[in-house]
């Protein structure tokens, strides 16, 4: 798990759930069965919580990455794979314990991304704070309320039977002017009723209210509350969550009304009247402080609800099928990852399908696709750059170590060349011909310098040096090219003074590189320039 994968998780889920939310919103405007619309709104919240698990090869997305549920950027793969699979690496590491750089790869530390830290901290605080409130409320409920009177309990039991609920829940009466509600008290739901309202309502109205609350319990809406809560804690920054919740609640109420009316225990008109009486009770300025009146706006959802109660509402023939269709779609959508797959054709296809079916704005779909592209490009670029930087650094370190070992005589040059080659292969994998060429040239230049040094120091004879260099060159470049053919005689016929000067300059550069004061790239360039310099004429 790292910062990047968490951000991807957040974005991926937000994107897909927003799409689902848009779809649900469109459907809710049409005469689609409330049950179906409710399921889709619920899907929005579920999608937010379920991490991107699967990538479907059928749809053209890249195959499942690995056991982890988070996206593994390729750099991590590059190094871990080579660590375990490559035998040369093992051998090499055994011989040179100093070269443990392969193991200590610094990576996107979880804690370096400030965005993640902020989001998680806020989520954590919200969780703690809300738990505290819940605890307080539970205490208040047990201490500031009393058991409901016998007649209400009897009525509830009767209604529970009609609605086919197993056991009638606990009912408590509270003196405060709170709305009748369902509350999850320690694993089981209870109904809380306000004392004043109960005294004001007629028996018929009370029956309606109780039936409504029992319908919520039958539908297990109190469990959906937990899903909402989790989403708010994790996605507090996402306005779609807030918007979707309002709609989810609204459609939930409509579904409850449907359930009550379907049980045929009362007249729709009586039921509607009871609800309205309750609302009027709470709209009373005595009950509700006038200051709150300014907060309120009408969003038409309430009106719609009443219209649906009054009108003869027959559920369509396709509701049954539609519900199963939504469940099937859920299985596909919930674990789905949209962003990880970089097959944009598949994404485009799916978006266009969504546009067809869900009638999402074409502009919206285009904008989403554009964002995906940009994000992917950025990710690619930054990932590539990271890989490149790491590789260069590691290679430079390795080269230095080898150079030192060779210089100290701990390793033969043959071995060194081999090791370096092996390391380079691991590091860069399949490289283009040009990269390979460049790498070879670099190595050749390094070895050449070293050999020169030895000749100057008098450790080996000129001829030996020439031969060695020749063999190295053959090994590296094959017989085809004769790059850097050493104009042996010419070079060594030069006055010793010039050679010494060149050697001294080269040595200086090497030291600077070793000390880290000069980059490898700059050193290469300088050396090349030195060699090209007519003053020295090594070519």
């Amino acid at each position, binding site marked *: 798990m790292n910062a990047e994968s968490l951000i991807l998780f957040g974005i991926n889920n937000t994107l897909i759930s927003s799409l689902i939310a848009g779809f649900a919103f469109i459907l809710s405007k049409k005469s689609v069965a409330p049950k179906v619309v409710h399921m889709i709104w619920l899907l929005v919240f579920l999608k937010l919580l379920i991490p991107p698990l699967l990538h479907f090869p059928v749809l053209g997305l890249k195959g499942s990455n690995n056991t982890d549920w988070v996206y593994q950027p390729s750099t991590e793969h590059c190094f871990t794979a080579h660590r375990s699979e490559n035998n040369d690496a093992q051998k090499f590491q055994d011989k040179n314990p100093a070269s443990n750089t392969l193991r200590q790869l610094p990576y996107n530390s979880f804690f370096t991304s400030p965005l993640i830290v902020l989001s998680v901290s806020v989520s954590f605080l919200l969780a703690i704070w809300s738990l505290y409130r819940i605890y307080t409320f539970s205490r208040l409920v047990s201490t500031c309320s009393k058991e409901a009177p016998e007649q209400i309990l009897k009525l509830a039991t009767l209604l529970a039977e009609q609605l086919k609920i197993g056991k009638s829940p606990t009912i408590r009466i509270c003196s405060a002017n709170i709305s009748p509600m369902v509350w999850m008290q320690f694993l089981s739901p209870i109904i809380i009723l306000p004392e004043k309202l109960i005294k004001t309502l007629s028996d018929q109205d009370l029956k309606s209210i109780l039936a409504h609350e029992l319908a919520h319990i039958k539908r297990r809406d109190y469990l959906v509350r937990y899903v909402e*809560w989790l989403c708010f804690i994790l996605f507090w920054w996402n306005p779609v969550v807030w918007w979707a919740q309002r709609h989810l609640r609204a459609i939930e109420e409509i579904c409850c009304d449907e359930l009550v009316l379907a049980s045929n225990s009362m007249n729709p008109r009586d039921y509607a009247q009871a609800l309205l009486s309750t609302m009027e009770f709470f709209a009373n300025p005595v009950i509700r402080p006038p200051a709150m009146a300014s907060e309120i706006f009408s969003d038409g959802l309430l009106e719609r609800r009443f219209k649906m109660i009054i009108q003869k509402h027959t559920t369509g023939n396709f509701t049954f099928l539609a519900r199963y269709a939504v469940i099937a779609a859920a299985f596909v959508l919930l674990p789905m990852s949209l962003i990880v797959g970089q097959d944009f054709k598949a994404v485009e296809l799916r978006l266009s399908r969504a546009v067809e079916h869900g009638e999402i704005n074409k502009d919206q779909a285009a904008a989403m696709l554009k964002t995906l592209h940009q994000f992917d490009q950025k990710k690619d670029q930054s990932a590539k750059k990271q890989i490149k930087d790491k590789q260069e650094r590691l290679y430079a370190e390795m080269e230095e170590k080898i150079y030192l070992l060779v210089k100290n005589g701990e390793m033969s040059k043959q071995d060194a060349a081999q090791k370096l080659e092996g390391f380079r292969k691991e590091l860069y994998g399949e490289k283009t011909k040009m990269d390979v060429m460049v790498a070879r040239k670099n190595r050749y230049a390094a070895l050449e310098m070293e050999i020169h040094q030895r000749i100057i120091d008098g450790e080996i004879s000129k001829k030996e040096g020439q031969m060695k260099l020749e063999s190295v060159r053959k090994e590296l470049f094959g017989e085809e090219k004769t790059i850097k053919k050493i104009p042996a005689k010419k070079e060594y016929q030069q006055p010793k003074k010039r050679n010494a000067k060149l050697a001294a300059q080269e040595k200086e550069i090497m030291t600077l590189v070793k000390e880290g004061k000069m980059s490898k790239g700059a050193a290469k360039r300088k050396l090349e320039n030195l060699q090209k310099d007519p003053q020295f004429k090594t070519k």
Partner: protein
Amino acid sequence: MLSYPNESKPYVAMIMKIFSALSNSELAIMEVLWEADRITAPEIRVQVYPDAAKSQHGTVQKLLQRLEEKGFVLRDKTHSLHFFSPRISRDDYAANQIESLVDRLGSGSIAPLITNLIERKRISSEDIKSIREILDKDNGGRA
């Protein structure tokens, strides 16, 4: 009006302290007022700060003034020594606290764990009027 069983008083007191619109010291004064119903400032001071030196008198006066401004306390100025009485009963205050807590656990809050029949914040008078019309129309039609 439901009055809380005596055993629950410490719990309620604790909860009211935490979620109170009043500070700890203000609540302490209110408790005294609720108990006594009509009392003078020095008597309040004796009960709230029993061991303190006389200088606490100023603190008590300040708190009483704040409570008066908030609408919790009524000051009787008929005599030179003012009498204080609570403007809102203890039960009413506790009920207020419960109501605001419910609002905070209802739809639209961070922990929307309550399934309210009515979201007090969500009904507008326009809603009620239009719903009333819908029902009346339907009633008229059926009648």
